[in-house]
């Protein structure tokens, strides 16, 4: 009697522990998602200029508004005349706080910079062609210059922008279209390579070969999954990159295709293992019925076994895509990471994950760069969510029919 009670009690405890575990897991997932989006969404509506800094021009300057790309080109020396951005015909003069020494002596600025705001003001009165990047606190009360009107960062400019310079001064360029395109190109290239190869191996192991050979192949494939990704990356950089460069006679070997090949190797174990399991779940009775009707082995595989296991194969592909999207280190090392719009797999590309991994460590916490990397994380999250939803939808339709 007592024994039964104890058992009941302990079962209750186990049930509670299991319930608690699932609650913790769900909570962790929700918290991470909330954290990701709360940091990432703060990017939008911000000025693309560092906090407490201003971009100012002379009061009489006819230019009222500049796009952030124009500002970058001005400070890069690609636009050198105000006429090019709709102003008067005069050469643009750049000024940042570190240039003060060229205009005033140390005594004029003051030992503890007490005259600095005044001097800047004098400069802004004197020079009509100046564009200055200044801390807000150095602007005197009745400041002679005029603050430039700059566009805020919007979802549209973030997603459709083609320039990724998150640390540029004075105005950052946060456009992620090249990164999204790079990610998609590299991943779909990888799946295109891995799917036929993986599926063929899975069919071979499940349907054609005997136990002996399977027992050799299977552990080898599983070993692939255990190799650290940085090893794949180095292998890619030293072997695959020069190989591709020679084969296609390219000026540079760090291209999207190198990333696709490495990723294809990395997702193979996932695809093979899951697809093989799916193929194996086809009931033997169906298989034997097909053979009994006089179908050959290949006909049986193609017409009976594969249609029967299509759900599992789809799942294998999705998990493979998921792994490919999320993989960072190997891709970071072989694709060249140039943030340009790709139009073929034979170009250098920069993926979303590589960008986050390479830049988050040095981005000042809470700054524009930091927020834009979190927003990138949100985009990655949404891409993965969409792929998963599509597959869910496809498999459900298949089940219904």
């Amino acid at each position: 009697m007592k024994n039964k009670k104890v058992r009941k009690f302990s079962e209750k405890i186990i049930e509670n522990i299991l319930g608690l575990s699932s609650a913790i897991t769900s909570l962790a997932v929700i918290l991470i998602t909330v954290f990701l989006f709360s940091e990432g969404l703060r990017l939008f509506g911000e000025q693309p200029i560092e906090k407490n800094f201003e971009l100012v021009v002379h009061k009489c300057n006819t230019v009222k508004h500049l796009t952030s790309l124009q500002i970058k080109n001005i400070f890069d020396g690609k636009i050198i005349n105000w006429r090019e951005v709709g102003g008067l015909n005069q050469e643009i003069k750049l000024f940042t706080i570190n240039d003060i020494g060229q205009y005033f002596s140390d005594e004029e600025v003051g030992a503890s910079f007490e005259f600095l705001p005044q001097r800047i003001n004098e400069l802004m009165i004197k020079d009509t062609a100046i564009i200055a990047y200044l801390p807000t606190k150095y602007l005197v009360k009745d400041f002679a210059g005029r603050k430039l009107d700059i566009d805020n960062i919007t979802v549209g400019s973030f997603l459709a922008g083609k320039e990724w310079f998150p640390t540029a001064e004075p105005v950052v360029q946060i456009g992620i279209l090249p990164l999204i395109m790079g990610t998609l190109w590299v991943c779909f290239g990888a799946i295109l390579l891995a799917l036929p190869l993986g599926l063929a191996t899975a069919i071979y192991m499940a349907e054609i070969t005997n136990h002996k050979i399977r027992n050799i192949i299977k552990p080898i494939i599983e070993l692939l999954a255990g190799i650290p990704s940085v090893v794949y990356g180095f292998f890619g950089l030293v072997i695959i990159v020069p190989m591709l460069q020679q084969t296609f006679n390219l000026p540079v070997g760090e291209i999207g295709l190198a990333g696709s090949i490495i990723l294809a190797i990395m997702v193979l174990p996932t695809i093979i293992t899951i697809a093989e399991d799916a193929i194996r779940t086809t009931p033997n009775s169906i298989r034997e019925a097909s053979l009994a009707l006089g179908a050959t082995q290949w006909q049986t595989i193609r017409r009976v076994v594969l249609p029967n296991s299509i759900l599992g194969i789809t799942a294998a592909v999705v998990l493979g895509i998921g792994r490919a999207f999320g993989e960072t280190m190997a891709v970071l090392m072989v694709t060249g990471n140039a943030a340009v719009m790709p139009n073929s797999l034979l170009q250098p590309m920069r993926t979303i994950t590589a960008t986050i991994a390479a830049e988050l460590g040095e981005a000042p916490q809470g700054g524009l760069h930091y927020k834009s990397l979190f927003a990138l994380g949100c985009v990655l999250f949404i891409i993965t969510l969409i792929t998963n939803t599509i597959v869910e939808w496809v498999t459900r339709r298949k089940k219904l029919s």
Partner: protein
Amino acid sequence: MKRLISLTAFAIACFAFTAATVKIKGSDTLLPLAQKWAETFMKTKSGTSINVTGGGSGVGIAALIDGTTDIATASRKIKMDEKLKLQEAGKTYKEIVVAMDALSVIVNPKNTVSKLTREQLEGIFTGKYTNWKQVGGADLKIVAYSRESSSGTFEFFKEKVMSKKNFASSCLMMPATGAVVQSVSQTKGAIGYVGFAYTNSKVKDISVSYDQGKTFIAPSLQTAINKTYPIVRPLYFYYLTKVETQVKPFINFVLSAEGQKIVTAVGYVPLQK
């Protein structure tokens, strides 16, 4: 009870330990060097403990302003707004140059170009020049390799060579110095920049001119020490004057012949004596 005693003893030991610690924080460029210095110093002077952490030059100076570090290491000079912040906090500081860092511009050994001016380098990395024949080489596409924007080397190159202009987006961004050397060695039209100590026989150093092509200087330990090689930057220690007695023994060691020998061993350029 026994456990409690040993725990208390441990806590006291920890406390005593932290009390004698000199904390160093800042530049990631200086991190391997500062660690080596600290290691050697602690071996020679037992009883002192030096705690080195990275995070970036900005992080180090911010910690100096907050008072959470004794020495801030920096791969750049303290900025004006940081000076102002220190002044607002009523703190006086001292600046010491502890070593120099030099960058080599490297190309593939098969490249016929062996010297470039600063203006040409700027043009190459901003995307103005895209073919080697524009800078006196063969008809070959230029492939520019850069470090990631988070790296101190990237900042240094941008400031010293590119007059703060942005890199072209077609530049390939490499995650590590070793990867730049590897890629340049296997790509015919490649050009890259790496810390002076990382070049090897598989890549070719470029002589650089900072006077519109009058004199070209090849990077070497000698030209870097006598300051004829232009792509060199000083590395700094910053500390508050009120902790001077506490940090002085370590700084003396760093500036000593033995300390400067470590600089060469780690791959930076020692100070001229």
